[in-house]
């Protein structure tokens, strides 16, 4: 049975899942085409480098392809795919964390060099790095916690379960990660080597979100 490539684009996600389970060879590919960029963003940000992200995404999609019959329709297809990709990424993070020796010391100069090759870290002009490059400088466990909590909006308790650690550990990883990202992402700020300018940059977005999980005492 062949499918008209234009026709398949009009089918909704649930319909594509049903077709895939029913043996339509094009249905899953169309699902991937639709949601790939979203899933890629999650994988790249969580893992911090494109090679690992591609590995994890491939593994996750093959997994999803094979386990399509386990999709019960109780969540959106995108949510289901997202979860499978997050799990594949977390698997890798946990394995990386099990390895000894954190390769990145807490050294802002080194972080900057890694994040923006060619940039001179002594250059005092504020360099706003792109978010992915900044995330890439974090240790894997901190990065995964922060991406899931701050970018993916996954509740802290769920992240703790995914990462196999305590809620407090997730919060602590997020806190340390935010402190490390601040000099990379916030203009006019370098950790330690200069004070904030007298007038706080009014362009910096005022957080409407309280830092997740942080109950003000």
């Amino acid at each position: 049975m062949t499918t008209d490539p234009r026709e398949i684009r009009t089918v909704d996600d649930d319909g594509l899942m049903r077709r895939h389970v029913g043996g339509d060879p094009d249905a899953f590919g169309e699902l991937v085409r639709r949601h790939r960029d979203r899933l890629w963003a999650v994988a790249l940000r969580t893992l911090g480098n494109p090679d690992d992200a591609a590995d994890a995404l491939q593994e996750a999609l093959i997994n999803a392809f094979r386990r399509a019959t386990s999709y019960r329709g109780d969540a959106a297809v995108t949510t289901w795919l997202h979860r499978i990709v997050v799990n594949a990424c977390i698997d890798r993070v946990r394995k990386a964390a099990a390895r000894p020796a954190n390769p990145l010391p807490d050294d802002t100069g080194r972080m900057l060099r890694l994040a923006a090759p060619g940039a001179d870290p002594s250059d005092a002009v504020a360099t706003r790095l792109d978010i992915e490059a900044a995330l890439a400088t974090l240790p894997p466990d901190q990065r995964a916690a922060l991406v899931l909590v701050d970018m993916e909006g996954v509740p802290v308790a769920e992240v703790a379960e995914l990462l196999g650690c305590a809620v407090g550990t997730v919060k602590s990883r997020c806190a340390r990660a935010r402190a490390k990202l601040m000099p990379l992402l916030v203009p006019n700020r370098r950790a330690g080597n200069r004070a904030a300018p007298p007038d706080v940059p009014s362009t910096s977005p005022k957080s409407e979100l309280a830092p997740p999980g942080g109950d003000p005492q």
Partner: protein
Amino acid sequence: MTTGHLEASQLAEHAEGLLGVDEAAYVEAHLQQCEICRATAADLASVSAMLAAAPRTLPTPAHVVDRLDRALAVAAAPEPEPARVVQLSWFRRKAPQLLAAAATVGILGFAGWVATTGAGGDDSEDAAEGAAIAEPEEQYDAGAEAGADSERAAEESAAAPLHAEDGELSAAPPELADEIRIVVAQEQDGDDDAADTCGLPLAEERGLELVGAAATDVTGEPAVLVVLRSSADPAVVYGWVVPECDATGDEALVTDQRVELD
């Protein structure tokens, strides 16, 4: 390092409510009177806000798109015309054996099952005869020698599991062997995925290690290729084609296709 101001990490932990009572009180008191540290705290909060506001998608690089497409094509075992012809012709050759094996199990029930699982000694001959007598009804266009084939094949299939470990029987045809090798290679490449339980019921039933599983249409319809590792020789694997991940041996469409890995 400026002394007299709070560390960013301390402020970040304070925002998460992670500090002890005394330290939290100290930080609060300092924030009350220090504009610079208040600015740091605001910047920390803005990090979370920036992350939350980042685009939900990033363009997948072209080489990753290609790679995913290829991997999914393998998983889907799609039908480029020539490959399909090869696969179908392989299946036609094997069809009598498959049907006979099904008949063995179906008609002789438990006796057939005993024979195919190897507990049955002499029964296996009976099983093979039973299968030969029970001509499969829906013949594929397997040709005139189908009867003889199916008798021989039934013997083979009834006996195959008995001798599965000695390597004399059921060398997989090249097309299936290739698929089996792909499964093995993927499992070697990828990390072990504890959650990947496709084929596990079969592996447990056979008492063999599960190497991996993949979608296949080698039998002409969507099915699952399960690869099990020989307990005698880790360089030998067996491919089974079953209708779904949870299937066990009695639902198998193709059994014990032997492949030696290099």
